[in-house]
């Protein structure tokens, strides 16, 4: 039998197949099919195995994200409480740029003309001040039918504490409008206060709802047609999976699932090689993604902003900056700058031979020999060393330095930028990067990893097997996960334990039902309760773990120490309060013990070439990764090549390939 994951990228779709009977993992790389991304998956699978022999499929979908990024989602009609519906368009009134008299707001997904009001009002304590006026809804139903609107969101004030009117509205409307209209209720999508952010999340759910749902339904049909009998699982932004049926209800929760696989892979790796603290970095052509595994768990945040649109959804905390192989080196007033501008894919770096006239990070790597001129970038692109040399020479003359100095300088600047970005995320979490190992994957990550580690004084760098498809492998390592929240605005000092317990049990029962609907056995369920807490008067909160026995003193202690850890100070005598209770419900999925094997790529052979490190040329050994034996140890300088990535190790580092096939690089003492 097989366990299968599919990660759909812009150019390639990566499929990882875990053959559980033969304990063997293999990778299939096929060209993506943007019109219907599922076609690539079927093409890849059909030519390699019998689909009916698969008993687990997990899939990361980018259909919704693309619809959002290209603004090709559905027209959404938003319904809010009478008198305050402009809160959505006001969007809280902040300026994203401080010095700009010609500032324009980023804009919302629903124009003001499509925001409607309904008479009703629920108060802060959940009491009803004004009953829902169904006449207002009837009028809106007429518009929905007349203008053939396919997606609706409803966000009433204080629905996170009393959802009655939102539910009543859906029941009333569904009798009057077509069955295929997506209706998103804000309290179901994000049970938290803040009407603008909650409305915005519900709107996103509706906006990408129809396109995501059509896609998932057609994929399911195709799978059934191929005699696949088991459930289809969808990757969520929170790092867990849910069944496609559940994903249909809340597509917004799968919106940012794309890069999550890598972090979840990091989590599995942390367990496998017993390194609980990892900094995961993924460097591609235009962007650099960072995420953290702390004590064996990915860091997950409960809200995000995408292109200035706030979303109250739990997601694996992945930070991105504009730094990648395509980052351009340029001059501003005779001073050298690198990035954030990228040459993109077109014209791309000069070495792509498509007319790029500015040197990029990839050109610097090629010029210094760190990237071999025979290597095929991403497995397919030929490189033109002369072009790189020319553009570097031109720029270096203007700076009055040698091309080698410039090329190494470009890399130093981009590495320092990436290291600064890593520092910033660790500062915010209150952690010390020196206690972490660095895991590098993605196309360019392992070419820069050692230098990032050097900057951050990290001692150990890990390059997993086949780093180019690490994300897809990560998806196979997930469990079912549901995140539940309840608003619990409570002064801690006057809190009764009983009240906390009641709320916890309520959440737990709700979560148990959800997991049951995913066919999880009770013995495979686990629950993790946390609380958002802060000192009275604050707005931002820290997320505090609550142990099973719910001991108030312990919660109090945890709060102050979590706070101290993040901010460097705390006020143990200060009064505190709860805002939300959050429950993470996990349904364990059985995984295999298979270790990924290296595919023999005959085009890659052991060799030697000259590489420049620190302005000196070294005759450097090039290792084909499949030729390195487990537990084999060797020293830098060295380069390890495989079809999807190149790992560069400068002098004074040593390398070992561990029993699982990971490359582990450490600095010589």
């Amino acid at each position: 039998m097989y366990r299968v994951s599919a990660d759909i990228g812009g150019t390639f779709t990566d499929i990882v197949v875990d053959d559980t009977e033969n304990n063997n993992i293999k990778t299939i790389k096929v060209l993506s099919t943007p019109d219907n991304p599922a076609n690539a998956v079927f093409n890849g699978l059909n030519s390699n195995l019998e689909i009916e022999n698969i008993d687990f499929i997990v899939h990361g979908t980018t259909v919704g994200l693309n619809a959002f990024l290209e603004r090709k989602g559905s027209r959404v009609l938003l319904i809010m409480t009478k008198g305050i519906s402009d809160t959505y368009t006001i969007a809280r009134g902040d300026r994203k740029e401080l010095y700009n008299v010609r500032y324009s707001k980023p804009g919302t997904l629903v124009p003001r003309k499509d925001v409607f009001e309904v008479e009703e009002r629920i108060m802060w304590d959940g009491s009803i001040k004004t009953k829902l006026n169904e006449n207002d809804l009837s009028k809106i139903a007429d518009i929905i039918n007349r203008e053939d609107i396919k997606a609706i969101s409803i966000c009433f004030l204080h629905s996170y504490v009393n959802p009655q009117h939102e539910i009543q509205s859906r029941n009333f409307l569904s009798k009057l409008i077509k069955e295929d209209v997506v209706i998103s209720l804000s309290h179901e999508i994000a049970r938290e206060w803040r009407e603008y952010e909650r409305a915005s999340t519900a709107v996103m759910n509706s906006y990408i709802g129809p396109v995501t749902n059509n896609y998932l339904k057609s994929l399911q049909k195709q799978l059934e047609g191929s005699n696949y009998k088991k459930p289809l699982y969808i990757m969520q932004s929170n790092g867990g999976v849910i069944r496609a049926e559940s994903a249909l209800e809340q597509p917004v929760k799968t919106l940012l699932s794309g890069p999550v696989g890598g972090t979840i892979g990091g989590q599995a790796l942390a367990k496998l090689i017993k390194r609980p603290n990892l900094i995961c970095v993924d460097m591609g052509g235009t962007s650099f993604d960072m995420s953290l595994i702390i004590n064996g768990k990915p860091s997950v945040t409960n809200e995000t902003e995408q292109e200035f649109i706030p979303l109250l959804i739990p997601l694996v905390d992945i930070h991105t900056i504009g730094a990648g192989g395509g980052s351009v080196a340029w001059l501003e007033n005779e001073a050298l700058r690198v990035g954030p501008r990228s040459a993109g894919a077109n014209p791309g770096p000069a070495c792509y031979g498509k007319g790029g006239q500015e040197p990029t990070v990839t050109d610097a790597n090629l010029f210094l020999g760190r990237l071999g001129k025979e290597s095929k970038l991403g497995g397919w692109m030929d490189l033109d060393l002369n072009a790189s040399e020319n553009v570097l020479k031109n720029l270096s003359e203007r700076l009055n330095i040698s091309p080698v100095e410039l090329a190494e300088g470009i890399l130093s600047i981009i590495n320092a930028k990436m290291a600064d970005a890593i520092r910033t995320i660790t500062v915010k979490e209150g952690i010390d990067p020196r206690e972490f190992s660095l895991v590098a994957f993605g196309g360019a990550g392992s070419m820069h990893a050692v230098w990032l580690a050097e900057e951050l004084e990290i001692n150990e760098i890990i390059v997993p097997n086949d780093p180019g498809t690490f994300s897809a492998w990560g998806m196979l390592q997930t469990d079912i996960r549901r995140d539940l929240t309840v608003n619990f605005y409570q002064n801690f000092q006057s809190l009764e334990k009983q009240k906390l317990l009641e709320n916890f049990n309520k959440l737990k029962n709700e979560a148990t039902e959800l997991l049951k609907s995913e066919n999880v056995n009770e013995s495979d369920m686990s629950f993790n309760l946390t609380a958002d807490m802060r000192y009275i008067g604050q707005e931002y909160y820290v997320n505090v773990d609550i142990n099973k026995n719910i001991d108030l003193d312990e919660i109090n202690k945890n709060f102050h120490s979590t706070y101290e850890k993040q901010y460097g100070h705390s006020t143990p005598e200060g009064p505190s309060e709860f805002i939300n209770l959050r429950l993470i419900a996990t349904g364990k999925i059985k995984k295999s013990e298979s270790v990924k094997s290296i595919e023999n790529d005959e085009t890659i052979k052991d060799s030697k070439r000259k590489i420049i490190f620190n302005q000196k040329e070294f005759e450097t050994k090039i290792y084909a990764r499949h030729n390195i034996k487990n537990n084999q140890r060797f020293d830098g300088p060295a380069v390890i090549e495989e079809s999807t990535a190149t790992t560069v190790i400068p002098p004074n580092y040593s390398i070992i390939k561990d029993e699982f096939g990971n490359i582990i690089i450490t600095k010589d003492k």
Partner: protein
Amino acid sequence: MMKKADPISTEIIRNAFISIAQDMNAVLIRSAYTPVIYEGKDCVVALLDEKGEVLGQSSGLPLFLGNLQVCVQETAKIYGWDYFKEGDIFFVNDSFFTGTHLNDITIFAPIFWKKQLAGFSASRAHWLDVGAKDPGGSMDSSNIYQEGFRWPVTRLYENNEPKKEIIEFLRINGRFGYSLIGDMNAQIAAGKTGEKRFQGILDRFGIDLVKSARDEIFRQSEELERDAVKNIKNGTYYADGFLDDDGLGSDPVKINMKVIVEDEKITIDLDGSADQTQGPVNCGFAQTISACRVAFKLLINPKRPVDGGTFKTLEVTAPKGSIFKAEEPAACQWYFSSLGLLIDAFVKALSGSAKELSAAAHYGDSMVIFIGGVDPRNNFPFLSVEPTCGGWGGFEGSDGADALINNVNGGFKDLPIEVFENKYPVSIFNYGFRENSGGLGKFRGGSGLYREYTINTDGFVSLWFERSVTPAWGLFGGKDGMPPNVNIKIPEQTEKNILKANGLQIKNGTVLTTYTGGGGGFEEPLERKPDDVLKDVKNRYVSIEKAKEDYKVIITKGLEVDYKATDELRNK
């Protein structure tokens, strides 16, 4: 002479300075106790060099641009540079020293590396209450002594030890002493973050290389600015405007500006502006300079980070004893109202020679509302302090932004109704755009807002609404935006419209409705494209009647433009 830093180290160090300031700011905002800082972003942090020049700065509040170095440099002027010892942390809030009101607390600390003074960390944040005669600050103070405790530069820490007596002194002089200490600790934590990161840079590159990289970074900034200023036509330009009053019911208060552009240099001369007033609209000169820098930054290299090389081409002069260079004992609580107007005036003055960079005026001031009392739900005292958004001016190619925070504020976000109603015994039943408030123009001014508060307890309201005498002006034929208004209905009293109030006593059931102004329009309204007018009608910013009256565009009941009738009407 010191060796010139190579371009690569220089760029790495430059990026690091920017990143250090951002980390400091993140620590401050995330750990602050009061909403004025974490929501209002009423704060700034900076990393300074050993002479107090800016290496990196991150500002939540534009108005604090380039102001922290003054505190360090003035302190050194008084006591000398060897006054700063390892393990010191300083505190200051005197308005005539910092330029701003007493609520803005500046905390700075020397950073040492290998026993030598290498730089400073500094931050400034608005503390909710510093012991003024009224909670949070007064709308009607007539001298600085009514506005709170006033401290010269004072050590908070010595030898890394807190001076407990001083901190206790501060604590008991604020009405919310506990949050005051929290905000102080947040500022100290931000400083520590800066210190640690800066020392890391020094460890790696050594102090000589860092200094020579700094010189190169300053040179780059200065030259970039000189190049940008050269593009503005030489000449002398003028603008003026009026504040409604000084807060104590005076006549309108004049601000007068002359801008001289001469090759690579810009001089802002504020001669002719009002003498310092009895009411609290005065400010110290340090803050006037900052405001001029904000104005300058709006037009000159707005995206370039600020450092010690910036603003070398800008000179500011103001008459001694005027509202812009006030002297003891002038009241300074609302120092920023005149500065917001000053910033708008600068853009207006240069608009004739830099039309493509300019925009019509915005609604103008923070429009602050205080609501206070005792919350009947838990018997705790509460105080809500809120600025309000309004419309911004139109500009070439675009309408002004609707409902945006004013120019002296930055990342402020309005408080969600749901959070507001949980925190305070107040209901907000109506909040939205104020129809037809944006000034007419080919590119219209942005829309102002109304916000209606129903207050469910006895208590008080204080108001600071401005710019009814000089509402947001239009440019190049665009019309002015609508001025602000506030309506208050206290049970059993006649309803009234007022813009300013200090501690006005209110009864349970009082309804307060605030209306903020719109932005000014840009170019002639009759040049506005009929389709843009139609879009406004569809989105309910403009009524069909107003479309005809103001823009001479005929829109049918089916929401379509009648082009023929429009042409006829427009060509009549």
